[in-house]
């Protein structure tokens, strides 16, 4: 185990970003469900200071702000799943939560932690991407609190790597309230029904009107170093009628545009096959139920 020099538990966002700026070498702890196993396994080394961010009220809560829903970084997967705003407007996140870990982990693990951990198999990432999420970041490089925002896909750089600056904190994700006719699906494919890491995952969203699919967003998990957008698949679907030919073309496009690796969970070949079959299945389901 790593010996720590320093432990801080700021009680406001202001205090946290000041400390981040001053202390420099800081490891941020939210639910700890990624951090602790990774440190036990020796994959992550704690920096000089461990900062527990769980006492910062500004990072909590789910609220509606105009046409957006803001989910605080510290919101746990369980809280997200239970929240009325999420259930009403973003049911996709509820179904994603349903396949996330176990109850114990969902009670501790946070949305912010899932995003900052930046695993290509992180199970909120693909749904958040197809819902059009932006991340909200805060820091205090000089005397003023500096906030910035970026579309979620831009935030990811590689496995465990993000555009978060060293003294920056992820404060929330913002999601537009979906328009009328919006449909969204998330499929986590693992080899068992519970407590599994995605071998692949697929998110599809768009507006379905008179059988035509538009404003289509597609994203894939666990097929690249980060969760990725399925641009070719989107193109195969955008403005099209969801008929058998479109679905077949989209499934092929999906299979062709992903370049997964082989690892202990699945081979690249099998992952591509599953991207094809599951994309097809999701689209068939969308077309049959709307």
């Amino acid at each position, binding site marked *: *185990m790593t010996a720590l020099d320093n432990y801080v538990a700021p009680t406001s966002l202001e205090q946290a970003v000041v400390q981040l700026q001053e202390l420099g070498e800081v490891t941020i702890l939210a639910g700890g469900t990624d951090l602790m196993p990774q440190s036990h396994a020796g994959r992550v080394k704690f920096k000089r200071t461990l900062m527990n961010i769980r006492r910062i009220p500004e990072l909590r809560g789910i609220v509606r702000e105009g046409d957006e829903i803001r989910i605080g970084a510290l919101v746990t997967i369980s809280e997200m799943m239970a929240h009325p705003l999420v259930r009403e407007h973003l049911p996709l996140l509820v179904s994603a939560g349903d396949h996330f870990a176990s109850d114990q982990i969902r009670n501790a693990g946070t949305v912010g932690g899932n995003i900052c951990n930046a695993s290509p198999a992180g199970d909120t990432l693909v749904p958040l991407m197809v819902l059009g999420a932006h991340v909200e970041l805060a820091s205090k490089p000089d005397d003023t609190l500096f906030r910035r925002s970026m579309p979620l896909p831009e935030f990811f750089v590689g496995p465990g790597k993000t555009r978060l600056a060293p003294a920056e904190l992820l404060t929330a994700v913002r999601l537009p309230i979906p328009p009328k006719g919006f449909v969204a699906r998330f499929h986590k494919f693992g080899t068992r029904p519970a407590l599994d890491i995605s071998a692949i995952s697929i998110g599809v969203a768009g507006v379905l009107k008179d059988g035509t699919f538009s404003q289509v967003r597609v994203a894939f998990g666990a097929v690249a170093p980060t969760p990725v957008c399925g641009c070719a698949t989107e193109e195969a679907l955008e403005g099209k009628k969801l008929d058998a030919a479109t679905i077949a073309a989209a499934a092929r496009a999906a299979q062709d545009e992903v370049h997964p690796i082989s690892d202990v969970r699945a081979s690249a070949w099998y992952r591509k*096959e*599953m991207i094809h079959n599951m994309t097809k299945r999701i689209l068939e389901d969308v077309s049959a139920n709307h």
Partner: protein
Amino acid sequence: MPETIQRDSLIGKRITKLDAPEKAGGKTRYIQDLDVQGQLYGKILRSARVHAKIKSIDTSAAKALPGVHAVITAADVPYQRPIGVAKDHFPLKTDRVRSLRDEIAAVAAETEAIAEAALKLIKVEYEDLPVLADPNDSLKPDAPLIHPEPHGATAKHDHLKQAQGIAYLGKPDNIAMTFDYQQGDVAAGERESDVVFEDTFHLHYVTHCCMGVSGIIAEFDPSGNLLMYSNTQVPFLHKREFAEILNMDPARIRIIQPPIGGGFGSKLDIYPFEPITVFLAKATGRPVKLVFTREEEFLASPTRQPVILTLRSGCKKDGTLTFRTVRTLHDNGAYTSWGATTPFVMMQTISSLYRVPHCLYHTKAVYTNNPYAGSFRGYGNLQATFAVEQHMDMMAEAIGMDPLEFRLKNAQDPGEVTPQGMHFKSCGFKECLTTAAEASGFLAKFKANEADKAKPGRFKRGVGMASMLHVGGGAKIYPSDGCGTILKMDDFGSVTLITGASEIGQGSETVLAQLVCEELGVPLSAVRVINNDTEITPWDVGVHASRTTFIAGNSAIGAARKARGKILDAAAKMAGLNAADLDLRAGHIVEAKNGTVVMTLAKLLRQLHFSDKAELVVTSFYYEPPSKHQDKHFKGDVSAAYAWATQVVEVEVDTDTGIVRLLKVTGAHDVGRILNRLGLEGQIEGGIVMGQGYALTEELMVENGVVRNPGFRDYKLVTAPEIPEMDVRFIETMDGEGPQGAKGVGEAPAICIAAATANAIYNATGVRIMALPFTPEKVYRALHAAKKEAA
């Protein structure tokens, strides 16, 4: 006091295990929870290379770390002797490492963290050797030797050659062990055959995944007596073996077994961490506790035996089996533990599950640089059954017979003595077959699925059956298979049963207590079972081979009957009645014919105490009845009774993903007699889930000697939502020798599942897979790869 008491019995009832409240309440103190005053913590440095010479080990920095009490390497324990089934394994490695689990050095320190930090300070220089990762490569003429003879008995290795009794001698080739068995003439059998199949089956690595990881505490007292808190399944054999390894007087070794967090065969051998902990205790003069991490448990505890098995078998058009030829290659790993001896059990299934006149069986266990296999519930039988039962279905199909009829035609009957010499005194095999088939609606489903399999559709249903034969009345592996009992009665009518048989979670305490209650007419709450201290309990061979209920049960009955006789004699004298007319019921002495109470048992016992009329401590023993022991050609009987079972598995195959779901398992088990119905159900349900893991999800992935998934994230145990519906039926054949007619059942339920699942997948899809496990990707490939590659 009641006036009359009718006879009541606990046999066949659903009895909660005696240790259930403690376990469910979280109060059980496992080895992890035990601490001894003044103890240090031990940690082991394992190899960083798969196969290499050790050029140098520098422990100076580790020794200098504050809080470290000892750092030892092989050089510090010149007296160490090789351990294991073939004595090919030094606890601390001397000149080379042969697998990644190999122990190079060990530390004892004030805390686990300090011990851990000290390991990181040990510097080892290696010189890599070529890695043998495939048993086929180990057999090549130019293959490097994994156990070359210690070079030239130089001064440096003198102690190896000189060690008395056991010495490490090396091997001129990479063959660890061979088994050859023959009955009849397979060539003649083949000439009579109308149908012949030959296939090669691949059986993979899995490991026990005990909830409690391995651990030990070792402590010397000032007189040099060694006390070990150990999770061994075989305390008495280990006492002797430890004495040999440590060059100690066995009388100075005491083993206390704290409650065990899972055994399943994994604690049947001595592993390096155990003597190493003793070395550390010796070096420091302090008690030393060593407990594995979960990752270490995956890397350094034994596995099930991986096997490549080629089976050639035939039958006549009328369904009569003609012959079987089997060649297996066992990947022995770097050292020899019990896994190498699994052919002993495999051949029983091959020769004797069905009537087969001609059999030939060759098997080789071959050294590689992989993890080594130990014993594991089923002991080779899962592997043999996987091959044999798939061929049974294939032959049935080839001659146009249904799988049930084909099996019934060849199944064993009671009274049969097989060509191998196994004598089936009680045998409910045919009843198992018909019961499981009827209860599951096997035949109708089998035919319906077959008709549906070519139709379009993503999900396919399948049903498959497999049967098994396993020892159920002890195993004549050692010259004798015995167990002793001491039974003591106090003056309140309570009974203390001191038995040699260990409880490893199988529920033996409860069953033994029930058997005693049956004889002494006392309630279950009046019985205490003591079974975990070699200084107190009488001798026993150990927990293996599904033997405890049978052997220890008979021994306990023997003691209880002796006590019963004494009690009834004394009561008869006191009451002026005839002992033969008396009975013991619900803590009373009663008249047998009408239940009229004569006196309470407690009162009688108090009168007997401090009198010269009776001794209230009795001893007894049980050895399996004499029979024709196996000769060196493996002909002869191996158990006093045999267990039988048929399991029918229903699956749903998702052809889009290759995911196979187990929908339902119907099992019919010949258990001789139900003693504790609840315990039996628990054993069978647990065994089915273990078999399910073996069939579908579990795999220790070993690549070039490296375990790639040493954790529960990627080593996939079955989770709760995957567990199928189960319908378990018991066949009571009332074995003549069994305790109250019962036979062993511990291993049986895990054995058939993989074979039955293979047959069910075939029934669903028409695709036969001969390699385990049936992971989604493997099944998907089998369903689609050929077609896709052609397209």
